[in-house]
């Protein structure tokens, strides 16, 4: 249809076909931006007419960005692993859940003896190391033996480990919602700009996420292992021929993914204050959606996708109806896939080329 309309417009540039071609070009270029801005702009106009200020919308967006920072960190784990071995790592969401459970336990155990700040740092480190070791172990047991197997086989072992981790979480948390309390007084504001409070919760979300992102970028772009990771992602065979140890590189990728999942676990425990063994599934699904929305395999895309989904979620929860939020997120995903089949900033990965 596309080709037909283009040829038609070249042979006989009738007004109708030119109009159609122009509309198409316009939609290809700006359709996605219009789509993404539709909701905030509509609510912005609504706010100006009703409240004569934009602070309600700004509050939503700020909250969405803090929420989205957590999803972005989880999404990075999906996208790193996908980029390097083209596997949808279904166990990653549940790994994040183990991270939340570890953080909650460490916080409950250490806040009394060593104080809040040190306890948070300890929880961060312990959760990161726990998740990294589990992830490396999963890679060793469930993915490495299947490296020569049909492409979908590791998907099923990933699902198997996801079930195992859910079960571990269930036994650990006795199948209950465990409250972390509110150790950092989440909703207390440091300062307020335009009626938008910047709270302790936001400080945790950004204070953990931004340094992690900077460190990750530095690692991937400059270090030897980071370069090996990029080379392996581009072409494993050629990377091996160049003397890169592909197995080690893949292990390192999984360790980094685990570190990020553990950090996201602490962010969640401090920001949402509630830990549950089944939440890994939902959070994993949303983070995976974020990774795909940005263009799977692309680090910037994962962060962008996470932030966008965070905003969509908060705006929808606040303005419309929280029970429909998953459906709205997925409708956005489908529309983005229709406009940009490779995701927002998708590069050509091996599969999607």
């Amino acid at each position, binding site marked *: 249809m596309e080709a037909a309309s283009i040829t038609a417009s070249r042979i006989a540039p009738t007004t109708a076909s030119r109009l159609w071609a122009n509309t198409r070009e316009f939609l290809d270029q700006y359709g996605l931006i219009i789509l993404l801005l539709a909701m905030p702009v509509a609510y912005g106009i609504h706010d100006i007419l009703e409240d004569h200020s934009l602070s309600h919308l700004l509050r939503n967006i700020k909250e969405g960005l803090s929420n989205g920072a957590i999803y972005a960190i989880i999404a990075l784990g999906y996208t790193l692993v*996908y980029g390097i*071995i*083209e*596997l949808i790592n*279904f166990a990653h969401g549940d790994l994040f859940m183990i991270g939340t459970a570890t953080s909650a336990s460490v916080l409950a155990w250490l806040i009394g003896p060593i104080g809040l700040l040190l306890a948070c740092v300890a929880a961060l480190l312990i959760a990161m190391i726990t998740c990294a070791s589990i992830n490396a172990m999963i890679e060793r*047991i*469930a993915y490495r*033996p*299947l*490296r*020569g*197997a*049909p*492409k*979908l*086989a*590791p*998907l*099923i*072992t990933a*699902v*198997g*480990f*996801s*079930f*195992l981790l*859910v*079960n*571990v979480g*269930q*036994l650990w948390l006795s*199948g209950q919602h465990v409250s972390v309390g509110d150790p950092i007084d989440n909703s207390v504001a440091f300062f307020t700009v335009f009626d938008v409070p910047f709270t302790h919760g936001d400080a945790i979300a950004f204070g953990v996420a931004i340094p992690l992102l900077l460190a990750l970028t530095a690692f991937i772009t400059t270090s030897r292992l980071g370069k090996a990771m990029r080379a392996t992602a581009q*072409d*494993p*065979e*050629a990377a091996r021929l160049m003397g890169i140890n*592909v197995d080690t590189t893949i292990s390192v990728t999984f360790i980094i993914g685990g570190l990020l999942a553990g950090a996201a676990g602490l962010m969640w425990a401090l920001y949402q204050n509630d830990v549950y063994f089944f939440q890994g*599934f939902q959070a994993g*699904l949303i983070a*995976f*959606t974020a990774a*795909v929305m940005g263009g*799977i395999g692309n680090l910037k895309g994962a962060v962008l996708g996470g932030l966008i989904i965070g905003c969509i979620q908060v705006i929808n929860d606040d303005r419309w109806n929280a*029970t*429909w939020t*998953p*459906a709205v997120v*997925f*409708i956005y*995903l*489908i529309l983005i*896939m*229709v406009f940009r*089949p*490779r*995701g927002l900033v998708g590069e050509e990965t*091996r*599969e*999607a*080329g």
Partner: protein
Amino acid sequence: MSALTQARASLTPAFMKNERQRRTASRVLAVALIVFVAILPLFFPLTATFVNTSTIALAYIVMALGLNIVVGFAGLLDLGYVAFYALGAYAMGWFGSTYFVKEGSSASINVFAGPEAKGQVGIHFNFLLILLAAVVICAIAGILIGLPTLRLRGDYIAIVTLAFGEIIRVIAVNGESIHLFGYELTNGKKGITPIDVPSLPGYGTLPIQDFNLRPWYWLALVMVLVVLFCNIRLRDSRLGRAWIAIREDEVAATSMGIPAVKTKLLAYATGAAFGGMSGAFLGAYLRTVNADQFEFSFSILILAMVILGGLGSIWGVVLGAAVLSYIDRQIIQETGPNLLKDLGITIDASQLGFGVFGFLLVVMMVLRPEGLLPERRRKLEFEEGVGTGETMLEARVT
């Protein structure tokens, strides 16, 4: 010339004979298996748990065979297959229960629904008519879900189908707030219940599940046989070969004149139709259509059956579906806990079900990465390494 003819004369019959022998052997084996499965419930009490499990396993086999068309034959990874279970089950709930009734009204529609439904309010169609409706609804839904994925490749297809599956689940959960002509669309987590007991032409009304499970089992078995026959015929047809060609190399297939759009959409529609059929049966068998049944993990369970059995291999998928159904429903929920109790180990086994299932998935997949009964074509590729970039670390040149 003559040497060639001679060679052909001496070679061909031997080869044909082998092939013919192999076919006869597998046919005899298939018939024996079907007879064995058909008489199996006679060895158990009328309402044995085993017969219940087997009936559900048969319904899952139908689903797995449907998903095998999409994932195994056409190579389109579908993570939202539960959508068709939901649509099929809701078709059964809408057209075969007392759900659509306004308070105080005695309006009823009754189309060959059997003596039980006579005089009852609500919409009551015959079981087979609803099965047909479920097939049609799901085939259309399959095409609609397939349309946005046509431009996508690989795992992006997976996430779009997953998104549709989740959207349908959310609609099912929140269906109470959607009103059509003054009726609520679904009953959310409370569920539409009870569903009419099927009434089959030539047999009459099936007994209620509390008294006798055998007719239900045989009904499910007939459904499996019909779907099995369709699957084998489809695989060997022009369409089936087109699916496999698209799976192996889409660019090569389209340049050979295979219409990619039509072929892919037909794969989605056929796979969805079988899923809807099984969903409608499960709706009637479980007597309730409830939004909790349509979780994402169900899609994963069916996908695991297909991959564990052997992608694209019809008998492999049947075996995979049977194995996982029995592990999920019989071993983890019945046999295992009883065994532990006999051994004197007091663990709350219901707390470990998830983990045991996951552990078994990992072990089986690591031991047989190509599936329990791999498709012959794939087995060759796997053993000789003549693949089309299907393995994890092979670079794609396309």
